[in-house]
């Protein structure tokens, strides 16, 4: 292949890029021959499994690889500059001016000890060669454009004085402030709330359209891709296995991996539940040489040639390329093997079978008007202590064998409810009844394990501290638990760090089951996991619920998953439940304006639907948790707000037989 001269419309051209990490234990071939073009104003999304080299590729484009990463070969042309061979000082002229960058975590991507102004103005002065005053004006203008209300004031603030959404906006303003021609965004919204995420995505979309900047963004969220990208690149083991126009790729994925990925997401439109598609196995160790197709071991459509020869990227449609020996990827028969999932229980409640209905009606968990206030005392004895009303009068019930989903924005008190249920916090007021015992599955399984303990000890611990049985019996129990969650016993001797994310979460679930709980509280059990792994865990939870008749409390940001897994849903806002009812009903017909906004913000993995949808965003930020709202907590952001909402607090009331909502004007 020869390197084509770049025409004015092509902003970025990457050709056969290889990026390696030279670690002590071997060379990690993170990027392994990636080529693509990006035209002016074009937005390309890069998706793929964790560790597939997305970030490494993105960072290679401006040579911001961390040690021991190195671009080994290939060419990168950014608007006529040969990035791969440019001297560092020349490169510094491009960084920030030609290329703007937005990183994943807004909390940690801004210098915490510098004011926004000190971080924003000097680059502007340098790249645009303007005075401090002009620089300041430009910076303020950009802050205004990204929707920061009081730019003149905010620019003097420190990052810690802002919310995550605000910070990510500042990051975007910084990336855009020097009119870059290319924006590289590595998971720019992953750390944000759904509603904020929607805002940011719209913002990026508008601004790039406005300035004509091209954009490369890395994400896990296929919904976002559908909403946002012109083009999609799917990475697997350091290679772009599929690249094409978004609509095309979603409609007709050609690579088995892409196909698997798309099927592993719960379908928002589908009311009946099918077992989620799981991609079996693990991605290859990128330190080892890969013979043939890297996906071969996990591919249902594998054939002999896949194991010996790596497929070239071939034409599959207009601008659509894929690297697979099979012309259309998986065949239908594999896809059809998906099993139907058990029906939702709420439906069963209405069933005529009195025995079953009775058993179902017994509550395993009941929370009555629970309050939890955190008092943040200042060191100064006389300043008034600030009180956070983390949970402000929540009543919930969970029936045997039922899954309750709790959704809501960050900081609305979901985790606090979970902690209250488990007795990790004492409620300030109210009562909790649990029939049996409750156990917990944490968000980040890794941090919920003592890194010094082996898997065996981790699972055994609950049995030991509860003085259960003898050593041998405990070992038996541990073994049966691990097989229950689908792990091999060979994992028992390992340490948590030697497991993959999905395996860790399985261990966490096994541990939670050790004491035969009646309720398992799972606080965002899948949000630290990869899309494909998430499907495995969700399937596992569904299976367990079915087999063991355990109740679940499932807390998540991921509304699609919550909808998929839950029988009933509670929507929380600022420490209160604003809507409560059967999952399907809430999703199909939200009553509370907040629920509606939340649902609207969820991107669905379908470019056609996304394109057709008119997105109404809630505006504004969450009110401070320190100030107890007099009226409706959502009043400040509600599109339908009326005077009554500001003065009178709506209480959760029955709307229909199964649904409750806290809104004066719910219709």
């Amino acid at each position, binding site marked *: 292949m020869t390197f084509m001269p770049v025409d004015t419309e092509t902003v970025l051209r990457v050709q056969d890029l290889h990026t390696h990490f030279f670690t002590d234990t071997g060379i990690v071939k993170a990027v392994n021959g990636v080529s693509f073009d990006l035209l002016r104003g074009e937005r390309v999304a890069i998706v793929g499994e964790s560790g597939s080299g997305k970030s490494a590729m993105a960072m290679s484009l*401006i040579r*911001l690889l*961390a*040690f*021991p990463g190195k671009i080994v070969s290939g060419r990168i042309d950014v608007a006529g500059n040969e990035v791969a061979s440019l001297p*560092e*000082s020349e490169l*510094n*002229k*491009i*960084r*920030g*001016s030609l*290329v*703007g*960058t937005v*990183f*994943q*975590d807004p909390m*940690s*991507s*801004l*210098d*915490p*000890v*510098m004011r926004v102004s000190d*971080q924003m103005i000097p*680059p502007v002065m*340098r*790249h645009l060669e303007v005075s401090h005053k002009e620089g300041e004006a430009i910076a303020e203008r950009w802050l205004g454009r990204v929707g920061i209300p009081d730019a003149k004031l905010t620019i003097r603030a*420190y990052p*810690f004085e802002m919310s995550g959404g605000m910070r990510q906006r500042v*990051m975007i303003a*910084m*990336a855009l402030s020097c009119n870059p021609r290319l924006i590289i965004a590595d998971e720019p919204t992953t750390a944000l709330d759904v509603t904020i995420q929607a805002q940011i995505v719209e913002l990026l979309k508008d601004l790039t359209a406005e300035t004509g900047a091209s954009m490369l963004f890395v994400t896990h969220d296929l919904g976002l891709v559908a909403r946002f990208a012109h083009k999609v690149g799917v990475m697997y083991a350091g290679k772009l296995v599929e690249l094409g126009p978004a609509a095309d790729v979603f409609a007709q994925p050609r690579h088995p991996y892409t196909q698997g990925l798309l099927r592993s997401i719960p379908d928002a439109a589908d009311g009946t539940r099918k077992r989620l598609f799981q991609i079996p196995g693990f991605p290859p160790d990128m330190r080892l040489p890969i013979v043939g197709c890297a996906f071969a071991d996990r591919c249902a459509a594998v054939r002999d040639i896949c194991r010996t020869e790596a497929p070239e990227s071939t034409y599959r449609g207009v601008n659509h390329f894929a690297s697979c020996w099979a012309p259309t990827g998986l065949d239908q028969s594999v896809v059809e093997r998906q099993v139907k999932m058990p029906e939702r229980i709420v439906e069963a409640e209405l069933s005529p079978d009195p025995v079953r209905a009775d058993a179902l009606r017994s509550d395993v968990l009941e929370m009555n008007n629970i309050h939890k206030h955190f008092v943040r005392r*200042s*060191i*100064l*004895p*006389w300043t008034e202590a600030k009180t956070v009303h983390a949970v402000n009068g929540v009543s919930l019930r969970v029936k045997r064998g039922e899954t309750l989903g709790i959704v809501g924005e960050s900081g609305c008190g979901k985790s606090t409810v979970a902690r209250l249920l488990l007795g990790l916090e004492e409620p300030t007021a109210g009562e909790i009844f649990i029939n049996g015992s409750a156990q917990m599955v944490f968000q980040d399984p890794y941090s919920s394990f003592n890194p010094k303990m082996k898997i065996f000890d981790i699972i055994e611990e609950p049995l030991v501290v509860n003085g259960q049985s003898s050593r041998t019996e405990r070992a038996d129990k541990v073994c049966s638990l691990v097989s229950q969650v689908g792990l091999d016993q060979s994992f028992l001797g390992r340490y948590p760090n030697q497991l993959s994310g999905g395996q860790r979460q399985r261990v966490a679930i096994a541990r939670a089951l050790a004491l035969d709980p009646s309720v398992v509280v799972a606080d965002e059990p899948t949000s630290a996991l990869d899309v494909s792994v998430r499907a495995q865990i969700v399937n596992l939870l569904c299976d367990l619920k079915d087999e063991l008749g355990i109740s679940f409390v499932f807390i998540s940001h991921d509304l699609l998953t919550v909808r998929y897994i839950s029988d009933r849903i509670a929507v929380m806002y600022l420490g209160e439940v604003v809507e409560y009812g059967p999952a399907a009903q809430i999703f199909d017909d939200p009553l509370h304006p907040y629920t509606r906004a939340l649902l609207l913000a969820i991107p669905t993995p379908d470019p056609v639907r996304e394109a057709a949808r008119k997105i109404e965003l809630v505006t504004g930020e969450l009110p401070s948790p320190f100030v107890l709202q007099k009226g409706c907590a959502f009043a400040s952001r509600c599109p339908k707000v009326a005077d009554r909402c500001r003065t009178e607090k709506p209480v959760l009331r029955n709307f229909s037989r199964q649904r409750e909502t806290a809104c004066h004007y719910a219709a």
Partner: protein
Amino acid sequence: MLAYSLKRLLQLVVSTFGVVTLVFFTLRLIPGDAAAALAGDTITGEALERLREQMGLNKPILAQYLTYLWDLVTLRFGETITTGLPISGLLSQAFPITLSIALATITLSLIIAVPLGAMAAFMAHKGRKTLDNLITTAAMLADLMPSFWTGLVFLLFFSLMLGLFPASGMVSFDDPVTFLKRIALPVMVLSVTQIATMARITRTAVLEVLSEDYIRTARSLGWSEVRVLFRHALKNAALPIVTIVGLSFGSLLNGTVIVEFIFTIPGLGSLLVNGINSRDYQLVQTLIVFYALFFVSVNLVTDLIYKQIDPRVQL
């Protein structure tokens, strides 16, 4: 802020009381008293008894303790038992000397150690281990040099061979140049260990910061590595450095006895050791109260500097 200081002050009073009481009784548990300390080869037992009486060492301990506490409260430091000199005078002579040595040591050490440590961290971060190893090992070795040894070597080399600095003489503030020359050697000796510690701390702190996201952000804005290192990384790594500076300050005030002895610097350390050696209870007690006060003030200042560097710090 003021309120915070007041709170710290209250803490100070409580812990000072603890220190004072501890010191008072520890001192009296140690055998030998000021009279015995004074008695050289020639004094007889009988004469000693007379001396003891004259020094007021015969009173019951509790009475001595109460008198002492009362004197403290009324801010009367009194005179030394052995020489009859006013303690406040001794303190006001020794303290500025020790303070300037401590300040000079800290300044010199910071100037050398921080760039060194930052360089080492930078190199480690970039995977260029040689320079990092070199600096780290040198720091470790420097940390292990006993000051009595470096003191003599520096004296021989800088003073005797090169004739750069005096080995002895008045320590007087009258002439700044002479003063600086006079304290140069002790400052250098003290700096050796300080540099080692600070460089090590700086390295660890900077290394940690260098892999933070905001460093990458700064790089993505087109700043050079050097600027990122010194503008962003160092500022964020400052907290542990400030902490260690605060601690060093404390230890430089009482841990310099050997250096003061070798270079005949009439500082607080010598005063304390003399006090202990001559069992001059009054002097030792006063000094320790002074130390405690100083210790807490340094803590306070450290906290204020924290707040200055990192606005997130809550006081």
